[in-house]
C-alpha cells in the first residue's frame, strides 16, 4: 500500500523555465514537482540512496542541521504534553495484515498536516502533526526547498497562514492564534529578556515553586492536607515553560480552532484593513482585526449548529464568506455585517453522490444511512477567465466556481457563483476515491485533485483491495461543455506522481495513522455526553 497524498499546493512562484510548481505531501514527506514536464525537483526529508527501510538517515533534524541549529534541541525536548504514541502496539488488531510490510517504526517521522506558502511564493511553510512543528523552507531557484527553521508549537496547529509582512499566523487546537516571525534572523533577534517577559504573561516560570494557595484560601481538611503536601513537594516541581522563540498569542477561543483566513479589504476611507477570520468547533466564526489590533473582535457570524471546519473567501468578492462544517448546509455570509445570506443544502447532493457511486461501481461501500452526517472537508474558489474561448467578440464574464468536498465522498461538488452568491444545483465531478485535497492552477482553468488511494470510495474505514487507483487527477474546464473534463495536458506529472516510484511509495504506511491524518473532520462532532 502506498500513502495517499494528503496535501497538494501550487506554488505562487514559477520554475526557472516559467512552469508551475506543485508541492505534494505524502505521509511525512513533501515533494516538489515541475508541472510541465513532471520532473521531481526536490523532496524533503531527503531520501538517502543507501536506505533500505532502516530509516536513520531520514531524520528531519539532519535535514535541518544547517538551517536550524538553534532550534534543533527545541524540537527534541518539545512539549511532552499529548504526544501521540507512534509505535503501533496499540493498533495491532487493525493492521495485522499490514504488519509484515511495515518497517520497524524506530524513528517514525511526523506526518505533514498542512502545506502553506508566503504570498510571494518565496517561502513554504509546512506543519508536521505529531511534533506540532512549524517548518519554514525557502524555495531556491524555483527548484529546491531549503529548510530554514523548525519551531515546535505548544499545541497542534490546525491552520497556518503567512501574511505579506512576513508573519506566520498559526491557529491551534487549543483555540489560540499565535503570530510568529517567518524568518530565522528575526527569530534570533528575540533576546532572552524579551522571552522572559513573554513567559511572564503566558506561563508562570518561577524558579522556586510556591503554591498559589495559602492556608487562608483553603477551607476543607482535605484541601489543607493537599496544600501541606504541596508545600513539602515545593521546589521539586518544575513547571513546564513555553517555547523560547517569539510567539505572541493574539487571538484565543475556548474551543478547538479548525480554520482561519486572513484578508485585506479597502475601507471607504481608502485605507486598507486587515482581518482575521477564525472558525471553531463550537459553531463560531469570529471576525477580528489583524495585528496590531487583534484584540478587537468586530463580529461573529452566528448560524452554524455544528462545528465549522472550513472557511473560504471568494477572491472575486472577499466580502462574502463561504463556510461549511458538520451542518447539512453550506453557509454564505456577508461577514463584515455578520449577516447570513444563503444556506445551501448539501444533503441531497451528498446522498445522490453516494448513491451514484455505489451503483456505478457496485462496490460494497457503507450503506447510506451510516453516512447520515455530512462533514465539509474543503472549500475552494476558482475563477476562470473565458478569454480563450474567443468565438464571439463580446467579452464573456469569467466563470466563477465554488468547489466543495465532503469527508468520505468521492465527488467534488462544483457550484457556480452567480451575482453575489452560490447557484444550485452543483455539477458533480466524480472521481475514483474520496477527495483529500484540491489545487487550482492560477489562470489556467485546471485543477488537480488528490484522492484517497488507500481506502475504498465512500468509506472511511474499508481498505482497497486493488491498489492501482491513481492518487492524483487533473481536470480542465471546458468552456464548450461548461463542465470539468479530463485533460491530457498534465500527463507527464500524472505519470510521475501516480507511477510506481511516485510519492508515498517509500513510506510504508500504517492504515490507522493514515485515517487519523486524512479523516479528522467528522471527529469534531460533539457526541452529546455529560462529562
Amino acid at each position, binding site marked *: 500500500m502506498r500513502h495517499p497524498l494528503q496535501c497538494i499546493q501550487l506554488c505562487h512562484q514559477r520554475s526557472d523555465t516559467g512552469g508551475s510548481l506543485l508541492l505534494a505531501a505524502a505521509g511525512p514527506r513533501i515533494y516538489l514537482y515541475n508541472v510541465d514536464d513532471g520532473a521531481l525537483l526536490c523532496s524533503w526529508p531527503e531520501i538517502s540512496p543507501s536506505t533500505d527501510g532502516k530509516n536513520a538517515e531520514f531524520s528531519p533534524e539532519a535535514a535541518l542541521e544547517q538551517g536550524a541549529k538553534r532550534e534543533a534541541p527545541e524540537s527534541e525536548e518539545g512539549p511532552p504534553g499529548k504526544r501521540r504514541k507512534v509505535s503501533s502496539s496499540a493498533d495491532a488488531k487493525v493492521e495485522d495484515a499490514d504488519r509484515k510490510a511495515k518497517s520497524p517504526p524506530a524513528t517514525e517521522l511526523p506526518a505533514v498536516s498542512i502545506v502553506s506558502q508566503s504570498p510571494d511564493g518565496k517561502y513554504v511553510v509546512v506543519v508536521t502533526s505529531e511534533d506540532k512543528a512549524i517548518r519554514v523552507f525557502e524555495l531556491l531557484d524555483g527548484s529546491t526547498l531549503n529548510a530554514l527553521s523548525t519551531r515546535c508549537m505548544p499545541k497542534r496547529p490546525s491552520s497556518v497562514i503567512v501574511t505579506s509582512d512576513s508573519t506566520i499566523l498559526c491557529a491551534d487546537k487549543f483555540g489560540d492564534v499565535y503570530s510568529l516571525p517567518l524568518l530565522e534572523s528575526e527569530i534570533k533577534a528575540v533576546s532572552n529578556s524579551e522571552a522572559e517577559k513573554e513567559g511572564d504573561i503566558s*506561563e508562570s516560570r518561577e524558579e522556586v515553586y510556591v503554591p*498559589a494557595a*495559602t492556608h*487562608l484560601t483553603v477551607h476543607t481538611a482535605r484541601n489543607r492536607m493537599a496544600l501541606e503536601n504541596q508545600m513539602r513537594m515545593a521546589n521539586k516541581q518544575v513547571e513546564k515553560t513555553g517555547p523560547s522563540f517569539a510567539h505572541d498569542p493574539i487571538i484565543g477561543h*475556548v474551543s478547538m480552532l479548525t480554520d482561519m483566513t486572513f484578508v485585506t479589504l479597502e475601507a471607504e476611507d481608502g485605507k486598507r*484593513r486587515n482581518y482575521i477570520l477564525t472558525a471553531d468547533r463550537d459553531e463560531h466564526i469570529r471576525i477580528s482585526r489583524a495585528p*496590531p489590533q487583534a484584540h478587537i473582535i468586530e463580529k*461573529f457570524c452566528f448560524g452554524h449548529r455544528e462545528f465549522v471546519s472550513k472557511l473560504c473567501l471568494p477572491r472575486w468578492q472577499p466580502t462574502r464568506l463561504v463556510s461549511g462544517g458538520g451542518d447539512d448546509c453550506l453557509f454564505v455570509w456577508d461577514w463584515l455585517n455578520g449577516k447570513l445570506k444563503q444556506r445551501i443544502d448539501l444533503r441531497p447532493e451528498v446522498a445522490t453522490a453516494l448513491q451514484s457511486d455505489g451503483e456505478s461501481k457496485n462496490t460494497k461501500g457503507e450503506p447510506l444511512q451510516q453516512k447520515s452526517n455530512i462533514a465539509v472537508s474543503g472549500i475552494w474558489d476558482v475563477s476562470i477567465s473565458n478569454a480563450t474561448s474567443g468565438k464571439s467578440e463580446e467579452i464573456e464574464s469569467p466563470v466563477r466556481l465554488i468547489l466543495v468536498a465532503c469527508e468520505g465522498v468521492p465527488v467534488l461538488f462544483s457550484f457556480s457563483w452567480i451575482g453575489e452568491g452560490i447557484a444550485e444545483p452543483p455539477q458533480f465531478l466524480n472521481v475514483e476515491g474520496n477527495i483529500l485535497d484540491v489545487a487550482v492552477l492560477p489562470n489556467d482553468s485546471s485543477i488537480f485533485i488528490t484522492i484517497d488511494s488507500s481506502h475504498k470510495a465512500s468509506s472511511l474505514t474499508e481498505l482497497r483491495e486493488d491498489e492501482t487507483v491513481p492518487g492524483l487527477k487533473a481536470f480542465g474546464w471546458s468552456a464548450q461543455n461548461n463542465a470539468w473534463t479530463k485533460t491530457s495536458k498534465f500527463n507527464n506529472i500524472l505519470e510521475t506522481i501516480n507511477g510506481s516510484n511516485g510519492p508515498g511509495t517509500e513510506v510504508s504506511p500504517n492504515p490507522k495513522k493514515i485515517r487519523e491524518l486524512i479523516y479528522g473532520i467528522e471527529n469534531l462532532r460533539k457526541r452529546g455526553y455529560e462529562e
Partner: protein
Amino acid sequence: MEEAQHQTKRQKREIYRSSHKTEDGSAELPRKKFYRQRAHANPFSDHLLVYPESPASMDWSEYYPAFVQSQQASAAAPSEELSSGVTSTTNSMTKRVEVADIGCGFGGLLVALAPRMPDTLLVGMEIRTQVTQFVQDRIKALRNQNPENGEYQNIACLRANTMKFLPNFFDKSQLSKIFLCFPDPHFKARKHKARIVSTTLNSEYAYVMRPGGIVYTITDVEDLHNWMVRHFEAHPSFERLSKEEETADECVQVMQDETEEGKKVTRNNGNKYTACFRRLEDPPWP
C-alpha cells in the same frame, strides 16, 4: 456502603426538589444542602449545554416575565434598544440584560444587587446545573415573597459556559457591568487556560461590553488576583480603576460583603483582593 449513602442523599434531594417544584407559589427559600455539586467544572468539555444560536434567538421572556413587552406595545413601538441592529424573532422585552455575574455561584451578589438596580436586568451565569437550579429556585421564592412591589423580577440565572458561549447570549456592547467573583483559581500552570481571565478571553469581555462599562473582579487568592490584573492591564481595551474610583463604587462593597464566597472568606479571616477595569473605546483602524 458509600454508594448506599450517596443514593439516599440523592433520593432525599430528589424528594425535596420535586416537592419544592409542586408548590409553585412557594415563598420558602431553597436549602443549599439539596443543591450541592463539586466546586469545579471543566470549561473545555462539551457538557450538554443549552445555548442560543445567536443573541437574537435568545428568549429572555421566561427569565424576566415582568419585562415582557405587551403585544400591542411591541407592535406599535419597538423599543429603542432592540432596534439597534437586532431583529428579534422571540418575545420582545422592554429591557435588555445589562449586567452579567459570571460564575454567580449561589446567587448572593444578584440578590443583593437586585433592589439596588431595580431598573436594570441582571443575569447570573453558572456552569454547574445544581447550583443554577438553586439560584433559580431562590429567585422564584424571592419573587413570591414580594408579589406586590415586584422586587427580584430583574434578576435571573441560567446555566452557561461563558468561556465558550458568552457572545451567543449578548450582542456587541450590550453589557455595562460584568462581575467575576471568586473564580476557580486553577492553581496548576497547566490549567491556566481554564481561568476565567486571560488576555485572549478578555477580548470577548470587551466585545460584549460597551465603552465605559466595568469589569469587577474579586478573589481571595493573591496569585490569581495578580494574574487577573496582569491580563486585564495587558489588554488594550481595558484600564484599571483607581482605588478612589473603586471605593466610590457601590457595587464593589456589595461584591465584597454579599457574595457567599466573600462571607466565607470573612469568616476565615482571609484576604479579599479586588480590581476593577473600565472598557475603553476601540481605537480607530490603523
